[in-house]
């Protein structure tokens, strides 16, 4: 099943790609067919990811932000080739990742690894921590067995665990420590790209800071590239270089960190930012918050027009009628909203962050 994207989307983002681009995704679609609801009904299709394009520069972090059901995790899984790809192009360095199959794909997996959200269910409770970290090395036949043993000890130190702790089982670690084991496992094969799927959402705030600092340090030291999935704007601001906001399977805004956080353009981005509770804002901030009513619409029959129009406080009839294209309003800053005006060469957001 192949959906044609608008020519704007297919052509424009390629201009961003340069030799320094590690991951390049073009017009990615991930659709899941559902059972027919009746004999003569056409089968329904869940459009989890519906035409997503982005680039990640080597050594930087691209954050994908959105609510549950926005398709951010499915995008990450598709990039990892852990989810079927309906159509689209995924390129890692010089390799066309989407075209790889079988053993070639398996070998390519040394280059991309993932850290999952839940540190409890992502480790085998019967496997010692050291064995979990060693598994990718054994599977990929990296080095001699003696070198692997050495590498595991090294990895434990790198993520802030003691090498002797590799003999313990997952239940003997706290949530934060388990996430450190997951990070060590992800780093075992020296990957170029690490996908972090909400790596700190399940952790206590105090531990969250430790893990974010660890990820930042590892990136500096090892030159890692992160695709960081999260729903928390405050966390994302701290870790990302570029940001893409997803809503119902599509990117609604994309830009470099500073430009985005200084001037978020899409009403949904502004609403997501205003939803984060802040220590200094307190109740005043809460009272002024932009309220989004209801839940996102179903990705089975997404609205024909702007997908956010139903919840958008700024929506006008034209928004509902036609899907706005993702357009570049200033170099590098893309937004899918027809209500963003350009005044004196600068984009103006239809909805402003309330000032506390």
């Amino acid at each position, binding site marked *: 099943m192949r959906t044609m994207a608008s020519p704007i989307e297919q052509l424009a983002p390629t201009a961003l790609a340069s030799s320094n681009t590690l991951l390049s995704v073009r017009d990615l679609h991930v659709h899941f067919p559902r059972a027919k609801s009746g004999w003569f009904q056409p089968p329904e299709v869940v459009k989890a990811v519906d035409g997503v394009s982005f680039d990640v520069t080597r050594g930087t972090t691209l954050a994908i932000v959105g609510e549950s059901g926005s398709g951010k995790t499915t995008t990450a899984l598709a990039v990892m080739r852990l989810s079927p790809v309906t159509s689209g192009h995924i390129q890692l360095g010089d390799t066309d990742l989407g075209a790889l199959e079988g053993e070639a794909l398996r070998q390519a997996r040394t280059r991309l690894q993932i850290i999952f959200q839940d540190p409890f269910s992502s480790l085998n409770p019967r496997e010692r921590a050291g064995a979990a970290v060693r598994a990718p090395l054994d599977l990929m036949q990296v080095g001699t067995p003696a070198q692997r043993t050495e590498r595991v000890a090294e990895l434990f130190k790198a993520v802030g665990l003691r090498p002797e702790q590799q003999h313990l089982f997952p239940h003997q670690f706290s949530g934060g420590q388990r996430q450190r084991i997951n990070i060590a496992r992800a780093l075992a094969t020296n990957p170029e790209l690490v996908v972090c799927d909400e790596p700190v959402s399940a952790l206590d705030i105090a531990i969250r*800071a430790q893990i974010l600092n660890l990820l930042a340090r590892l990136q500096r030291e090892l030159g890692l590239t992160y695709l960081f999935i999260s729903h928390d704007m405050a966390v994302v601001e701290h870790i990302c270089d570029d940001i893409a906001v997803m809503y119902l399977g599509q990117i609604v805004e994309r830009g470099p960190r500073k430009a985005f956080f200084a001037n978020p353009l899409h009403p949904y981005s502004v609403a997501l930012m205003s939803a984060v509770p802040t220590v200094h804002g307190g109740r005043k*901030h809460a009272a002024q918050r932009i309220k989004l009513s209801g839940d996102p619409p179903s990705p089975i029959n997404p609205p024909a027009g702007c997908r956010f129009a139903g919840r958008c406080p700024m929506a006008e009839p034209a928004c509902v009628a036609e899907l706005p294209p993702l357009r570049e309003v200033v170099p590098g800053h893309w937004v899918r909203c027809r209500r963003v005006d350009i005044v004196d060469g600068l984009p103006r957001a239809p909805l402003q962050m309330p000032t506390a």
Partner: protein
Amino acid sequence: MSTTAPLLQVEDLRVEFKTRRGKALVLNGVDFQIRGGETLCVVGESGCGKSMTALALLRLIPSPPGRISGGRVLFQGEDLVQADEARMHKVRGNRISMIFQEPMTSLNPVFKVGDQIGESLRLHAGLDAAAARARTIEMLQQVGIPAPERRVDEYPHQLSGGMRQRVMIAMALACRPDILIADEPTTALDVTVQAQIFDLLRDLQREKGTAILLITHDMGAVAEMADRVMVMYAGRVIEQGTTEQVLSHPGHPYTQGLIDCLPELGSSLQHERAELAEIRGVVPSIWELGSGCAFRERCPHAMARCAEQVPPMFATGEHGALATGDGTHRAACWLHTQDQMVVA
């Protein structure tokens, strides 16, 4: 905030668990009170005893191995620790109710949500099936669920996470309780849904005057929701005061750490990104406490004295450590020894 006698007064509450290694004191002398209509936030990391405190109030501690080994929980003057099981049945879900962190696991997947809400109405309010159903629909409406007449007959899996948590809130508030205990009600939810749930709790509190005991680990949530704050660490209360006192002039290094390690939105615009402040290490296990302050291993201000003696509660003032204050802001830290009075 009302100034009447406290609705709930907890004095020197102790909970211990029998384990293979001996008795573990998971709550060690917890004191606090909740007044009618106010929101008290309990803050701390996992394993600090926040949820255990909530469970102890409702006598829901798994027993054995756990038991309340001391102290009193005075609810409108009645000691719930001494109450018999029949009396507790009348209190739970009726006078004091609770919503849990994970809305999927705390709803029964094989019953319709309407039946689950109606159950407490039929049990506590003595309503018949038809009246309970009507009241359930009204409750669903109040918590902001669209088309409640239809939703009442749906199963939990048909609802989104935010909707399920709304159902939990409807269930908890059905009998108009005096106190609602919310144990990290938004941790499993998106920030946008969290904002909706907080708004809902605030609105319902304003309408019904329910006191809320909100358990969280997020200082941002505290700033938004709380009238008063109580910070727990390793089974003890280490600081309490009004939200303004605790957030603006934290008296305990742990509280300061919790505030500092929250990434603040917009911070990268003024200055370049630095490392986030972190509280190093982890909460010690109950067996590693030894004598002295439980936080000393992670504390940037630890002194020799911290290893020897558990600090008592010092009253700190309006403006932190040095003022004599009115005694409402208290912190258990030896930093406050100089000219402080010990209050507990």
